[in-house]
């Protein structure tokens, strides 16, 4: 009976994302995946493998290295690349600082997060990428709720949220002028919960940072940071050992840990289900102002 044909939500979301990734391969000359080593970009990479199986994925991975990474995330990235025969290009924030393209922020809350935009745009230009695929989701943040799947960027890499192309049905318009590029977000419609459920369903390997572990952390403005050589502790800030995990993985200097005993994917799903804060609640980069994300995105951020 025809009525029996239905997909559950994870299969429907997966199918939509695979469709988007295939559109990218068909509509662009030289696309890359923005790979941060976080769960969303790992899931996007997994979806790309599914979309083009048994062929290799027709995208290069581009990692914007802030120099302030979690070592675990870098190790995981390198293993993933090695195991699946992927191509990886690293764009370095340190190099951009050394070349004088950007200036390091000063003070206690200095972060290299916003500095990523310059080497990112430089790498896009240098490698002639005409499309950068990202793992951003609309449920993450209110400016992202307005994003398209196919998001146009002008020749300065800027996003113009008030003048976006309408996006109808599943017809995506990736036409552009020379020098412009697109950001494409295949998992736009996924929530944090969908991502974890999918990781569980597919048994996708994840960096250990997402699972409960002991770590030296210190508290600043209500956020628990991993003790690290890049952040200067104030005199009253003392590192102590706690059992924690990370809900998102970004730059080490702006990603907070949560106290958690969740050591398996099942635990994490149940923790996310019971959680009363959003995952970006642990991100200092979003707390700078009400429109912090919108402002960075307009300038060409992820």
């Amino acid at each position, binding site marked *: 009976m*025809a009525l029996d*044909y*239905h*997909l*559950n939500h*994870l299969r429907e979301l997966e*199918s*939509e994302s*695979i*469709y988007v990734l*295939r*559109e990218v*391969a*068909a509509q662009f000359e030289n696309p890359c995946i923005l790979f941060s080593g976080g769960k969303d970009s790992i899931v996007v990479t997994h979806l790309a493998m*599914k*979309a*083009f*199986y*048994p*062929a290799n994925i027709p995208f290069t991975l581009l990692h914007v290295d802030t120099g302030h990474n979690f070592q675990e995330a870098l190790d995981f990235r390198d293993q993933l690349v090695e195991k699946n025969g992927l191509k990886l290009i690293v764009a370095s924030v340190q190099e951009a600082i050394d070349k004088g393209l950007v200036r390091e922020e000063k003070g206690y809350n200095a972060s290299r997060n916003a500095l990523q935009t310059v080497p990112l745009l430089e790498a896009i230009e240098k490698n002639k990428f005409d499309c950068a695929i990202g793992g951003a989701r*609309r*449920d993450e*943040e*209110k*400016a*992202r*709720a*307005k994003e398209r799947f196919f998001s146009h960027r002008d020749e300065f890499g800027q996003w113009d*949220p*008030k003048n*976006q*192309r*309408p*996006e*109808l*049905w599943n*017809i995506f318009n990736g*036409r*552009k*002028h020379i020098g412009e590029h697109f950001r494409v977000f295949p998992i736009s419609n996924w*929530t944090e919960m*969908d991502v974890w*459920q999918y990781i*569980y*369903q597919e048994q996708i390997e994840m960096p250990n940072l997402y699972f409960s572990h002991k770590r030296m952390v210190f508290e600043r403005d209500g956020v628990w940071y991993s003790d690290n050589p890049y952040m200067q502790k104030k005199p009253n800030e003392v590192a102590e050992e706690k059992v924690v995990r990370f809900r998102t993985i970004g730059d080490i200097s702006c990603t907070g840990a949560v106290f958690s*005993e969740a050591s*398996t994917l*099942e*635990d994490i*799903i*149940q*923790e996310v289900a*019971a959680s*009363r804060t*959003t995952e*970006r609640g642990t991100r200092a980069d979003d707390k700078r102002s*009400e*429109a912090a994300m*919108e*402002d960075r995105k307009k300038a060409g951020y992820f």
Partner: protein
Amino acid sequence: MTTTQENFDSKAYLDMELLRFTTAGSVDDGKSTLIGRLLYDSKSIFEDQIEAIESASEKRGEEYVNLALLTDGLRAEREQGITIDVAYRYFSTPKRKFIIADTPGHIQYTRNMVTGASTANLAIILVDARKGIIEQTFRHSYIASLLQIPHIVVCVNKMDLVDWDEATFDKIVSDYKAFASKLDIKDVTFIPISALTGDNVVERSKNMTWYNGSTLLYLLENIHIGSDLNHIDARLPVQYVIRPMKNEYHDYRGYAGRVAGGVFRVGDIVKALPSGFTSKIKAIKTMDGDLDEAFTPQSVTLLLEDEIDISRGDMIVRENNVPQTGQELDVMLCWMNEKPMPLRGKYILRHTSKECKTIITEIKYVLDTNTLTRVEGQTELKLNEIGRVSIKTTVPLFFDSYRKNRQTGSIILVDEATNETVAAGMIV
């Protein structure tokens, strides 16, 4: 948190249905309040989001927590207190996952509602109980029917302001039915609610005991959506040809695409368009293993028995069930750009995975969406106008009527100079 692996109910977490809906209402109909209520009562608003809007409301000198700030994501929107663009929101209950396409009530109305409606299974149309059916209700309902949203829920809101009066509700229902009979609406439900107090949104109303129907959330959780897609007419627009270039897959040519209608089974005799060659499905490939059958909306890769020429933009269908083919077609077109569409205008057309050029050969009429009357003799189609036009394409399209299939019956037009998407069209 303790490890509760043994209690982990993977079915409850992994096997849920997805419902996409859109909300339509005019300014001050309480749309933001309704969405806020759904998110809040289903516990989908998080503490840090509440804190963020509390502090924002305070900064703006507002006395109450402004739930609209949750939905207005852009700086300009918050400054002007208006919603500019479609925003997508997500919430779930133990029964279903929901994606809301939240469309603004005034600016760019038609353009945004059409966008939100294009992927929706269901539309919520808000009516103010004090005002009853107004012009905008016509327009919202017309767009919902034009876009063939399978289910319409008319929420008569602000029932608290009419003393929960049954006769007021009944009058609105009969007024609505009277004009909806002129539209192509298959399934419509009416619910008296108060988004402000929450009556009949998530919790059953104690003030309207005369109402025996379900609450809005119950309806959203239970409405049957299994028959919304076309499972009859098998269509696979080819998106991409997979050629692995590896020794073990020497002659592999996989036709990748998302099934846009019907079901394909291994062994089916299929026809490739436009070539017209037939072959048999050898295998249906995915990374998780081969499938016996593939149905809409699955993304799959088909292997055929014979080597025939198929590339992006072509369509694979069943031999005995083919779509229409033609270069001249009639389309209900919704214009979405400031620059009007002139008669004889030339555009790039996108239909499934195909792209070609097109010319507008006739504007049959422009529709007055407030009265549903046809205005003939127009020489252009302006922003937010909807009209019936005839077009001619440079190459043949393989299409179904939009009524039959929303995927193979829809097109967009792109301006060649600016590359902007300027129109959405539904093939008549």
